[in-house]
């Protein structure tokens, strides 16, 4: 009887440990936090970790750091996360090449590495989670070509590219090129690399407009700097809404909060959303799967969430567009 009681006590003590959630600490390295998009990602990751973590019996903790756009600082930040003993490292890379060394460092320390939003260069991480930038440019480009075709306009476009070290910018250029090569309604008359710098969006577009007075449209690799695009078009007397004779046709990427009112007013003709919530949801799902030793089931390109085409006609009714609701 005494032995039975002792056994019962031991069982009672052990049971809570058996059913309690396992801990998972994810160290996340931001390259920079300068846009509402990054804030939204982070907030959604934290909230989604609670939801998915509870369902999966995993208690997720986050450690975030920011590299302020400096690849070497990001490498140091990731090194710090590994030293702190996080279970998984994730990073949005400032530089696709420079992040390779950090992935190697994490792997040699036995820590899984998830690249987020921006893929690495030559070294494969444990998993990649992000948007499908190629598909994003492709869907925008096709919708743009359809629109111009329906209006009887032959588009001579200026392409404002992102930073050429950012794999998403490169994929968007490829996607747009695919459309230009396959459709007669649009062509690219000049490319302007911006390094994601708003000042270069403005001066680059202003220069390109002066050099190419026959340009009547632009493909903008991200609408985060849409005010700079607006300034350049105003300077050239080309900033008018759809329907106006001087309207300059605009196709953008992302539908970030600053672009929403401009699309509603008819200045932006077509865009494809970059779905922060879906990305964050996927990030947490993949992290939990890796933590549990399961296969996250990503495709060869990674776990990618596709965006949705948005136009002035649909922006008012499209559901769950984060940039409209996120505060």
């Amino acid at each position, binding site marked *: 009887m005494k032995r039975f009681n002792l056994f019962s006590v031991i069982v009672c003590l052990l049971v809570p440990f058996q059913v309690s959630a396992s801990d998972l600490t994810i160290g996340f390295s931001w390259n920079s936090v*300068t846009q509402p998009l990054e804030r939204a990602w982070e907030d959604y990751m934290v909230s989604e970790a609670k939801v998915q973590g509870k369902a999966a019996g995993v208690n997720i903790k986050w450690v975030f750091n920011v590299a302020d756009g400096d690849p070497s600082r990001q490498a140091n930040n990731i090194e710090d996360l590994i030293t702190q003993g996080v279970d998984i490292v994730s990073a949005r890379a400032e530089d696709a090449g420079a992040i390779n060394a950090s992935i190697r460092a994490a792997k040699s320390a036995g820590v899984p590495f998830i690249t987020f939003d921006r893929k690495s260069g030559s070294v494969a991480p444990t998993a990649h989670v992000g948007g499908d930038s190629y598909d994003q440019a492709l869907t925008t480009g096709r919708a743009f070509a359809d629109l111009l075709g329906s209006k009887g306009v032959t588009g001579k476009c200026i392409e404002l590219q992102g930073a050429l070290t950012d794999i998403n910018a490169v994929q968007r250029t490829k996607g747009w090129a695919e459309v230009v090569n396959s459709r007669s309604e649009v062509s690219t008359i000049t490319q302007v690399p911006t390094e994601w710098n708003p*000042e270069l969006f403005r001066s680059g577009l202003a*220069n390109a407009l002066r050099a190419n007075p026959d340009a009547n449209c632009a493909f903008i690799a991200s609408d985060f700097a849409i005010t700079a695009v607006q*300034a350049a078009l105003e300077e050239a007397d080309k900033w008018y809404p759809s329907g106006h004779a001087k309207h300059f046709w605009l196709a953008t990427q992302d539908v970030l909060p600053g672009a929403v009112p401009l699309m509603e007013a008819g200045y932006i003709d077509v865009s494809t959303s970059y779905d922060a919530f879906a990305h964050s949801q996927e990030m947490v799902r993949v992290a939990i799967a890796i933590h549990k030793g399961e296969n996250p089931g990503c495709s060869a390109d990674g776990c990618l969430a596709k965006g949705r085409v948005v136009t002035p006609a649909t922006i008012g009714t499209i559901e769950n567009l984060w940039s409209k609701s996120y505060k």
Partner: protein
Amino acid sequence: MNTSILGNRILDFAFPIFLILVSLGFALVEPSFLGLGNIFGMLHAMAPIAIISTGMALIVMMGKLDISLGSIALVSMGVSAIMLQSDYSLFTAILITFLVGAMLGAVNGFVICFLKVNPLIATLGTMIAFRGLGNQITDAQVVVLPDSLRALGNFSFGAIFFDTVICLLLLTTVHLLHQRTKFGKIITAIGNDEATAQRVGLPVTQTVFFSFVIAGTLASIGGFFASAQVGAVTSFLGKGMEFTAVAVVVVGGISLFGGKGSILWGVILGSLTFEVIRSGLNYLGANPYFYQLIGGVVIFIAMYAAAIKLGRSANNS
């Protein structure tokens, strides 16, 4: 002796000649490059950096450096943008922008003049600290400016942009301050030999302090126009501007050792050189990293020309 003077004259005119040749080269490929629209467009684009470089030139004339000017631009415009979002009037916000710039310049002046910290080290510290402060104020987010301020970015008198006019006014004022006033002569004296200037009883501390205040104010004005041009305050504002300003000053023929050069022509020549290269390469659709390469080569040539001139002066004395 005559050969040396002739050599120095050739070096003095090397960059204006280079600028003309480069412009003609771009115009050969794309004739509209030298069209009035593009010339005024380039003057418009270079106005913010020329204003910031004017302050830098004043500091360099004393043989010192201020590498916090880009961060001052961010903090002062950050404050202004937040005030505008809180419904303060445009006039009040602009006034506060310039006051914040002057105040941050005074912080630099205080650390350098009264705590006796080397200017490069002092402003390296404040560059990092001010950028952090600026990002804190704006939450490192894009703050869209109201239409009234955004309109100022493209406001023009005919073909000449408002910021170009302000830039020329400020440049001329600072140039005259340097050339025609006692304050300017003390700056040159400090640049030539600070210890001697101090020994003969010149108000060195006050002059250095107020020069940093002026440079801070000019940085905030430059930041104001840079933000008005893009219609928003972003965390990119002023990033690397301090180094571009140093490059402008060097290419403009102002000696990094102080005491030599013309603020008006130096800043115009330096700013225009970089803007012509940027705009020209943009016209040709060149890779942006090619611009960095060319910019680096131009700075190297300017430094080399300055070193040759300095060597000649040393040999002659």
